[in-house]
């Protein structure tokens, strides 16, 4: 028998924060009201993981909970962990979808290693997700979805999954969730199937109670999402309320009810944003600032497709998206659009880069602006389509024939995708070059609160057009003496007709040339142009003056590496972190920083690509390496235990 919900335990419930009812333009203050006879356990941070069938709506429940938490000013970091199957067989082990969110009073850098609360909507979720929960985590299970059939599908040997997995029943909230959902909707006139679609909302309501979240914010979210189906919205709201009430009435928590009070708030107006959406927004912002139309040529590929989805919506901003016949055409058509004077972008993941390499290379020799977004995933080949890796670094740096220098940036976090995309576009347009922006499944799907940017705080973007005074004397490969960038002459402009192409051209005339000296010169000029791009210095965080150990990473591992550094410093170690955002060209102070500390560990989610690149670029650099290729984010505790060992050596 499954354990019943533990009741009669001491409940800790606190009141709402002073949050207004509408989600839009909500005014949040720090003000809180203590309800009578209730204790509050203040938490610094908490990790919640929702898990269920891929059709159970776990991503939605997780998203709403994140938004509700962000609304009160908590720092959030999310990680959707979903299977490649769209709808695996119901109740099967392979079809489990998870959504993890880390909520903090102070800044949180990662979605968290292990969950404090794990929601399992069925037996399969319980079985596969337990490994992501802390040993003392609260586990919420729908007993109705742990019947004989479900247990068989999840390959349980006995009829008591809790005991079989060795879980302490005191920390399990096992409830008849499905039954309660049906009860809540009994007079709604809904059919069985529609009712069951609301199960995720019960879990959401229960978790909202557990963490004292304001349901009105969740309701506003639901009403907006189902704006065209008010009946569905109201049913969902009813179920959220039922879940919340269930928690309240039964005090159904094995541990405590907690609240995460916000600290370190940066005042401002915020929205929730995923990395992919932030990338799309960064491109839109850059196009606007450059006075250009935005063109995206793309082909659907996980985990990059949401960029195409997002940009396809915004035709009122003059954004053109072409869903091409293949990855090749995605990049090639973007290059054609660049020739015609657009801010041209192509978005993809690693397998798409393989196919785009040829047109990316053409962009190198034609010296046209192009932004290539690579949302990395597990490889090689199809690999792990929904999982995250940093294994495309060397591919984008070197995976083309000939000497083919290309600037490469890597975004540090979901919100940094905005800045990085903006910067990639700026570099492309001002330096007349293709630019690669590396993100990955982890930052692309993860979300965080995004402070609405004021574009006036961002650098202006000046596309490198041919100045009028060069009319009559201009040749296609004439360069800006300072940056080495050639000029952009856009078709339609009289007096500047010219031919570009994949064949080497004479530097002076722009005509096809096989002259050996000219080819050598052109090769160097293209490299020099990229090398001259000015990028900010590499920033060192932590104990920058006296660290015993420097952690080095790039892109999306920033949060995990930062959290690991914080933990080690809290233990009294002297540790610093240098996270690369600009990879080509490298920041000017790279060698100096890497040589400054007695011990350096390069930690990355590949087999040592950044380390290899840095060894190649920095004479005598011989770092330790921490490499992991599991398709999952780093685990901070594993990082710290490895780094502690290094420190003790």
């Amino acid at each position: 028998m499954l354990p019943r919900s533990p009741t009669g335990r001491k409940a800790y419930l606190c009141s709402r924060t002073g949050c207004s009812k509408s989600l839009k333009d909500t005014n949040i203050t720090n003000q809180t009201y203590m309800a009578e006879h209730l204790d509050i356990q203040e938490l610094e941070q908490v990790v919640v993981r929702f898990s269920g069938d891929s059709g159970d709506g776990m991503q939605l429940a997780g998203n709403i909970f994140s938004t509700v938490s962000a609304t009160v000013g908590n720092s959030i970091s999310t990680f959707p962990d979903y299977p490649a199957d769209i709808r695996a067989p119901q109740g099967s082990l392979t079809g489990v979808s998870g959504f993890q969110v880390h909520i903090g009073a102070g800044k949180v850098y990662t979605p968290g290693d292990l969950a404090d609360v794990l929601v399992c909507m069925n037996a399969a979720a319980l079985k596969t997700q337990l490994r992501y929960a802390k040993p003392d985590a609260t586990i919420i299970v729908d007993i109705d979805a742990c019947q004989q059939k479900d247990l068989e599908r999840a390959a349980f040997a006995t009829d008591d999954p809790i005991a079989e997995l060795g879980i302490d029943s005191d920390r399990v909230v096992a409830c008849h969730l499905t039954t309660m959902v049906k009860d809540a909707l009994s007079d709604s006139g809904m059919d069985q199937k529609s009712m069951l679609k609301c199960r995720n909302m019960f879990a959401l309501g229960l978790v909202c109670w557990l963490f004292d979240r304001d349901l009105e914010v969740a309701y506003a979210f639901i009403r907006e999402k189902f704006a065209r189906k008010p009946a569905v919205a109201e049913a969902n709201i009813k179920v959220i309320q039922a879940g919340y009430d269930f928690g309240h009435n039964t005090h159904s928590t094995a541990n405590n009810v907690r609240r995460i009070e916000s600290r370190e708030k940066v005042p401002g107006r915020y929205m929730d944003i995923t990395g992919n959406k932030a990338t799309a927004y960064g491109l839109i912002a850059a196009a606007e600032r450059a006075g250009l139309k935005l063109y995206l040529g793309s082909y659907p590929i996980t985990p990059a497709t949401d960029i195409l989805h997002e940009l396809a919506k915004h035709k009122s901003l003059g954004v053109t998206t072409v869903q091409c016949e293949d990855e090749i055409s995605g990049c090639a058509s973007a290059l054609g659009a660049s020739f015609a004077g657009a801010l041209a972008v192509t978005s993809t993941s690693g397998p798409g880069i393989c196919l785009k390499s040829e047109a990316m290379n053409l962009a190198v020799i034609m010296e046209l602006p192009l932004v290539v977004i690579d949302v990395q995933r597990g490889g090689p080949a199809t690999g792990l389509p929904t999982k995250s890796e940093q294994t495309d670094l060397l591919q984008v740096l070197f995976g083309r024939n000939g000497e083919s220098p290309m600037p490469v940036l890597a975004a540090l976090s979901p919100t940094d995708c905005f800045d990085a995309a903006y910067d990639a576009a700026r570099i492309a347009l001002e330096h007349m070059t293709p630019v690669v922006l590396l993100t990955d499944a982890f930052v692309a799907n993860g979300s965080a609160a995004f402070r609405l940017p004021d574009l006036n705080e961002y650098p202006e973007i000046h596309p490198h057009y041919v100045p009028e005074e060069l009319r009559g004397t201009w040749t296609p490969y004439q360069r800006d003496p300072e940056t080495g960038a050639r000029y952009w002459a856009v078709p339609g402009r009289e007096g500047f007709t010219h031919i570009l192409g994949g064949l080497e051209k004479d530097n002076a005339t722009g005509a096809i040339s096989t002259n050996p000296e000219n080819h050598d010169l052109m090769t160097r000029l293209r490299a020099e142009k990229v090398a001259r791009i000015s990028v900010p210095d590499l920033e060192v965080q932590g104990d920058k003056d006296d660290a015993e150990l420097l952690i080095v990473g790039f892109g999306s591992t920033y949060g995990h590496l930062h959290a690991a550094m914080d933990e080690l410093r809290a233990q009294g170690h002297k540790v610093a972190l240098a996270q690369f955002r600009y990879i080509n060209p490298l920041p000017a102070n790279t060698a100096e920083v890497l040589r400054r500390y007695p011990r350096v560990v390069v930690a990355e989610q590949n087999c040592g690509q950044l380390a290899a690149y840095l060894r190649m670029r920095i004479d005598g650099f011989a770092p330790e390496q921490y490499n992991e290729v599991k398709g999952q984010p780093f685990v901070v505790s594993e990082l710290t235990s490895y780094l502690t060992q290094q420190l003790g050596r």
Partner: protein
Amino acid sequence: MERTAQDYKKGQPRWCPGCGDHFFLASFHKALAEIGVAPSDIAVISGIGCSSRLPHYMATYGMNTIHGRAAAIATGTKVANPHLSVWQVSGDGDGLAIGGNHFIHANRRNIDINIVLLNNRIYGLTKGQYSPTSPRGFVSKSSPYGTVEDPFRPAELCFGARGHFFARAVATDAPGTIEVLKAAHAHKGTAVCEILQNCVIFNNGTHDSVYDKAGREHNAIYVRHGEPLVFGPNKEYGLVQDGFGLKRVEIGRDGYTIDDILVHDAHAADNTLQLKLALMGDGDGFPVALGVIRDVEAPTYDEAVMAQLAEVSAAKKYHTFAELLETNDVWEVK
């Protein structure tokens, strides 16, 4: 403004003497002069191959890109600036082998570009391998015992991809080529012009039956919309429908008069008879059809993209990035 072929000319072509590309280029310059679009409003985009060198001899904007991708690149150029007159120039390998996917999808989308397909049924630049238009059994360096595969017939591929314009000309036939190019320019949507072009070095004589004027008198039929499908030195032959196919008849014989002869309808949406015309001449006793075989109005991709931009833009309330931000659920932290 009166323009001449000279306005579109640049440089000295480097093709082999006698190459069909020279003839085509001269006709292309003349056709553009007659069309009259400013050179600065034209983009000529090619892939790789002998014929793909052509943009270098144009005083227009242009790109000589990478193998097979010209249609994809041209698509981006046209969508980004629909005002431009965009011409893709490809050979049979560039256009139909490595670029086959882009060729069919350009036709399917019906983007307003003109695709010039210079078909010499051979890979010239790599020195003589069979191409996807070489006939079965064709002996080349890469098929010393003859190919064991059937060729593409460009018209069939175009029609199969729902193409709305297909025309054919012989490179040495300047008036025929100019007529076809002007019709392609006038047509809104993807316009495929197959130019039968002779490679003097690696596949000399492949189009011999129609390559000179005398040959065309006997072995070709010039098709013109609204005119009867007659051919021969004295227009003494004609085409009639016969069951599910076409039949070649002699006017005045077996009771056939000019009134029995099929009248060409390039504008018919149903491409059945147009395809039959386009496939004639493959050693089947029929003449090779030259001229505009199919020319049907249909919505173009680039116009539809622009129309949708305008329509959505009028309907939506946000038109700047700052306004876009406000469409999200925004909260304030004080």
